[in-house]
């Protein structure tokens, strides 16, 4: 097993940079999620790791080995495709066996490995079935067993859950996470679903327009987003436009002074806080509150969401646990306050 190192990889199609100068060090045994909106270059990055796409520039390394110019079939990767791509003309067992004979394994070793893999994904009973006669979840398990049978150095998964319904999706991602841990294999997993990425990845790389915006744990990304894009993409976030006037000091567009934690250079920026960190109160405190009007109240069971609009016209969102008596109503004029420690600034 080995980690994967991407150094300044780029892929351009004509004038479009599908992947633009991305560097990531994926640790040995780690499950890394590549997360981002449609068209941001996730699949292209994954396909460069697999070897289906040759980078325009940069290098791909498995462990210490430079594999940038090595074709797919000599890279020793395992891949789970979107839609699984099981061979319809072969049985489940033959699908799992597909990558073994070509490696010159002897018959006994192949048979033992196929049995082992099918046992691992609990598909022994269906070994002689055609993949066409399997449910989505079963197909996915076979795809995983097939991808892992030849003991690849790296496991790559492209939106592996997108074909499943919501309930099965949750179940399968826990299952894949467990199997990946057991095998201890370095894995890269592509998704545009932030909840999915946060649920199973050790670290998440957030991509936008071909660039890697931020790489870190789910908590890092949520608590310390480095850009407006990451702040808005991972969870919900309130943005108050204005500019930084000094260390920890911020001024809104209509001149109100606010404070924040962390560092930021002086200049135009946005002050942010998460909806669950906001509190609606009748009292205005200087430095960390804004007068607002309640525009809409959405009851979501355990929490209630309040759509607010500030005097400067900023739309803000606050979520609070639902309480019966004295809860704010539409049209109420209040203040939204937050603790300075929860306020951060992005460009």
């Amino acid at each position, binding site marked *: 097993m080995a980690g994967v190192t991407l150094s300044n990889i780029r892929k351009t199609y004509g004038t479009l940079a599908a992947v633009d100068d991305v560097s990531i060090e994926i640790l040995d045994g780690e499950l890394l999620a590549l997360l981002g909106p449609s068209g941001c270059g996730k699949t292209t990055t994954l396909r460069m790791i*697999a070897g*289906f796409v040759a980078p325009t520039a940069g290098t791909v390394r498995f462990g210490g080995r430079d594999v940038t110019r090595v*074709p*797919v*079939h*000599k890279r*020793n*990767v*395992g*891949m789970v*495709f*979107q*839609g699984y*791509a*099981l*061979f*319809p*003309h072969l049985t489940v067992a033959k699908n799992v066996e*597909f*990558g073994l004979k*070509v*490696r010159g394994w002897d018959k006994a070793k192949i048979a033992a490995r196929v049995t082992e893999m099918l046992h691992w994904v609990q598909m022994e009973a269906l070994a002689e079935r055609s993949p066409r006669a399997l449910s989505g979840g079963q197909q996915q398990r076979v795809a995983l067993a*097939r*991808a892992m049978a*030849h003991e690849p150095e790296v496991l*790559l998964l492209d939106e592996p859950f997108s074909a499943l319904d919501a309930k099965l999706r949750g179940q399968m991602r826990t299952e894949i996470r467990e199997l990946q841990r057991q095998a201890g294999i370095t894995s890269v997993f592509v998704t545009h679903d932030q909840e999915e990425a946060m649920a199973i990845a050790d670290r998440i790389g957030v991509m936008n327009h071909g660039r890697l915006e931020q790489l870190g744990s789910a908590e890092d990304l949520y608590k310390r987003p480095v850009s407006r894009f990451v702040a808005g993409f991972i969870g919900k976030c309130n943005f108050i436009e204005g500019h930084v006037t000094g260390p920890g000091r911020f001024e809104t567009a209509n001149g109100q002074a606010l404070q924040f934690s962390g560092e930021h250079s002086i200049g135009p920026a946005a002050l942010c806080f998460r909806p669950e960190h906001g509190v609606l109160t009748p009292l205005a405190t200087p430095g960390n509150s804004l007068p607002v009007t309640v525009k809409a109240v959405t009851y979501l069971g355990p929490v209630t969401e309040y759509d607010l609009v500030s005097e400067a016209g900023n739309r803000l969102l606050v979520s609070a646990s639902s309480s019966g008596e004295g809860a704010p109503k539409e049209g109420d004029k209040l203040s939204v306050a937050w603790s300075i420690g929860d306020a951060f600034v992005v460009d």
Partner: protein
Amino acid sequence: MREGRNWGGSALVVPALFLVAAFLLAPLALILRYSFDKYDPVKLMLGIFSPGNYVQAVADPFYQNVLSTTAYIAALSTVIVMLLAFPVAYYISRVESQRLRGWLIILTMLPLLLGNAVRSAAWMIVMGTKGVANAVMLGVGLIEEPIKILYTPTAVVIALVSVLLPFAIITLQSVMDAIPTSLEEAGQSLGHSPLRTVFEVVLPLAMPGVVAAAAISFALAMNAYATPVLIGGPTMKMMGPAVYDQIAKANNWPFGSTLACILMVVTLVLTVLSTRFLSRKYF
């Protein structure tokens, strides 16, 4: 479900079905009937029913020879066609640019727009003793004297292959289009080279297309008429021209019909046998 079935719709199909059946089956039935009749120089046909023509045709070394030559030429052409059509169809079906793909398909079909006679005439110009092929080979010093290409079995095979290729390519390409490229990528990710993936993934999945294309090619080659006559010349005897000779030149409708029926049955049997062989190997 069954009760809800719309029989009214099916009823509309019936007249069309009869019409097609009449056009297709009536001539067949007629030929089958003629084939058991007997030729008479005066009355043309006696109106009797006897297997005499079949006995005569099967026992005659001349027709045995014509039939085996026909089957041999058709089989050889089919094999060559399939070997050429498979990679070309694969290339067309996998080419990335949709524009190029469209042009390639049009280019493939283009020869079909020429009539059989025009195409054969073109081949005659190319393959004649003073033709283009000889001129080129003489020019580059490949040969010292013009060689005989036209009016040989080789020439017939070359010309047949050129007629059959478009059918085979288009048939194969449409089947290959339905094979997702992700299956090939899966094969490669499992350690198979791109070429090996074609044999282990694309070929088995394209087998229905291979069988169909080969069956079409073989049937067309067995029944070829213009190509053997024009390119094969007077000494080249194949079944299509032989049937025509009996009916049009000798006026022997019964015997011509017998030859036609034998040709049909042999084509059918060989096609079915080879199809079953291929199917058993791959499905």
